C-alpha cells in the first residue's frame, strides 16, 4: 500500500524526539482524525539548526513527519516558510489518496512551529488554537468521501457512490 520511500521513513524515522527549550513548537491534529504531530525547532542565524518531531499516527503520518524534518533541516526560515504539503508528498514519491491529509499535518506543524518562534521574538501571545473536529478537505482542490475514497463535490452531505451520510463531516 505504501511505496518504498514512505516505508523507509516509517521504519527508520529521522529526527525523532523532543528539543528541550526549543525556540519554536508547533502541534497539529487531533485524535478524531487519527494523527497528532508536534514539531520542535532550534533556530540559529535565521536558519533551522535542529528540528525534531513526535507523532501519534499511522504509517504515512510518521513518514510525513520524518520527511518534513529532513527537508526543513538547515533551511533558512524564509525558505522553510515556503514548504508545503505538496513538497512533502512529492519527496515521499506519493501517498495513497486517502492518506494525503497526513501530508497536510507535516507542513502545518512546521509552519506553526515557525510562527511560534516568530511570535516569541515579537513578544506576541496567541490563544491556544481551537482544535477542529470536522473532516477537512484542504488537500488540493479535491474532496474525497471518507468512507469510500471516491472524489466528491465539495460541501455535499451524501455520497452517491457508497450511500454514506456525510453530514457529520461537513
Amino acid at each position: 500500500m505504501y511505496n518504498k520511500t514512505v516505508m523507509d521513513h516509517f521504519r527508520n524515522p529521522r529526527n525523532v524526539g523532543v528539543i528541550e527549550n526549543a525556540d519554536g513548537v508547533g502541534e497539529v491534529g487531533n485524535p478524531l482524525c487519527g494523527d497528532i504531530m508536534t514539531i520542535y525547532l532550534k533556530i540559529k542565524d535565521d536558519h533551522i539548526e535542529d528540528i525534531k518531531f513526535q507523532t501519534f499516527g499511522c504509517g504515512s503520518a510518521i513518514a510525513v513527519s520524518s520527511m518534513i524534518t529532513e527537508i526543513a533541516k538547515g533551511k533558512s526560515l524564509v525558505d522553510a516558510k515556503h514548504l508545503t504539503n505538496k513538497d512533502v508528498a512529492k519527496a515521499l514519491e506519493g501517498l495513497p489518496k486517502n492518506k494525503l491529509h497526513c501530508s497536510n499535518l507535516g507542513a502545518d506543524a512546521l509552519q506553526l512551529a515557525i510562527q511560534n518562534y516568530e511570535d516569541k521574538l515579537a513578544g506576541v501571545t496567541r490563544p491556544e488554537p481551537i482544535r477542529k473536529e470536522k473532516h477537512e478537505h484542504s488537500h488540493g482542490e479535491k474532496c474525497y468521501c471518507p468512507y469510500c475514497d471516491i472524489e466528491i463535490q465539495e460541501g455535499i452531505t451524501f455520497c452517491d457512490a457508497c450511500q454514506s451520510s456525510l453530514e457529520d463531516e461537513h
Partner: protein
Amino acid sequence: MKVINLDHISAKPLLPEVKEVMIEAIEKDYHNPSSQHKSGEEATAALQKAREAMAALLNCKTPKEIVFTSGGTESVNHAIKGVALANEDKGKHIITSNIEHNAVIRSLRRLRSSGFTVTSLPVDSSGRVKPKDVAEAITKDTILVSIMHSNNETGTTQPIEEIGKITRERKVIFHSDAVDSVGVVPMDVQHLGVDLLSFASNTLYGPAGVGGLFIRRGTRIFPLLDGGVQENNKRAGAENLVGIIGTGKAAELALRDMDKRLIHLKTLKDQILSELPHAIDEYIINTHAEHSLPNLVSISIKYIEGESVMLMLDDENIAVSTRSACATGSLRASHVLLSLGLSHADAQGTLVISFGVDNSKEDIVTFLNALKNVVTTLRDISPLYQKESQL
C-alpha cells in the same frame, strides 16, 4: 518466509482436506445440478451431500433450510431485504443494534430510503445488547429483528437465545449475522431460536466467496436474486459447486473436530490474555471476558496508532488487523469501538488478534515479543505518551 497469521478474521487458511475435495471436484468437472441427465444427477448428489453436512452443523430440521450463497454479505442482504420485501404488508419496522457489520447497516440504510423505519439498539459498556431493550422496541409494525451473533471487531457474543425467546413469543422474524461464529463455536438453530442465520464458508476454513443462509421452514422471505429455481427456489443462478463442495467438507470437519478446536483456541486465548501484561502496559481489552469467541482478542493500546503497529508487526512477518480509522479507509474511528465508550484516541490504537487451528503457542510467544518492541518504539515517537502517561 513463513508469516504467522493472527488475522484469521480477515482470512483463514483452507484446510488440506477441504482443498483436496475441491481439487477433486475441479478435476471431475461436474455438470449442472439442475440438469436431469446422469451427469446432472451426479452434481445434484454432490450438492446435496454438502447441504446435509451444513444442515448437520447447524442442527437444521431439514437440509432444505440451507441456501448456499456467494458469502456472508449476500446472506445478510438476502435475509434483511428478502424479509422486508416479503412482509411489508404487515409492517415496516426493523430492529437492529449499533454494532452490526456494514452488510447489515447498509442493507438497512437502503431499506430506510424505501420507507422502512429502523430502531438501532445501543450496547452496554461490555458490548452486549440487552434483550429487554429488544422486547421494548418491538411494536405492532415490527417485522424483523437482526442482531449479530458475534462481533467481528471485539469477538463479543450477543444473548441470541434470550432474544430468540422474545421474538418467538412476539411472532417477529429473527435474523442473526453469525458470519464469525459458525464453525468456530457450536451453533444450534433450534436452541438459538433464530429464523435466519447468515454464515460464511471461510470461517469454517472453507473457501472465500461461498457462504449461506439458514432459512427456517415457513419463514416469509423473497429471494435476493430472481431467475431459476436453484436452491429450492430461494437463490437463482447456477451453483458454485466447487466452493459448495469445499464448504460441505469444511462443515463436516468443523462438526467432527469442534471440541478439539475449542480446547486449542481457548489455550491460545488464555495465553494471550495472561501473558499480555508481561509484554505491555496501559491497554484496554475490548473482548468480553465471558461471552466471546474463543479465537479473537481485541486490544486498544494507549498512545499509539493501530496501523503503525500492524505495519511494524508485518515487518516481523506477523499478520494482525487493526480497527484504526486510518487503516480502514474511513477517517472515522470504528462505530463498534465507539459504542463501547472508547475515546477516539484509544480506538485508534486497536488491534484485532484472531487465531485458528494452524496457530501454535510458539506463534503467540513470537507475537508478544514482537509487540513489546513495536509498542516501545512507537511510544517513544508518540507525543501522547510523553504527555498523558506522566500525568
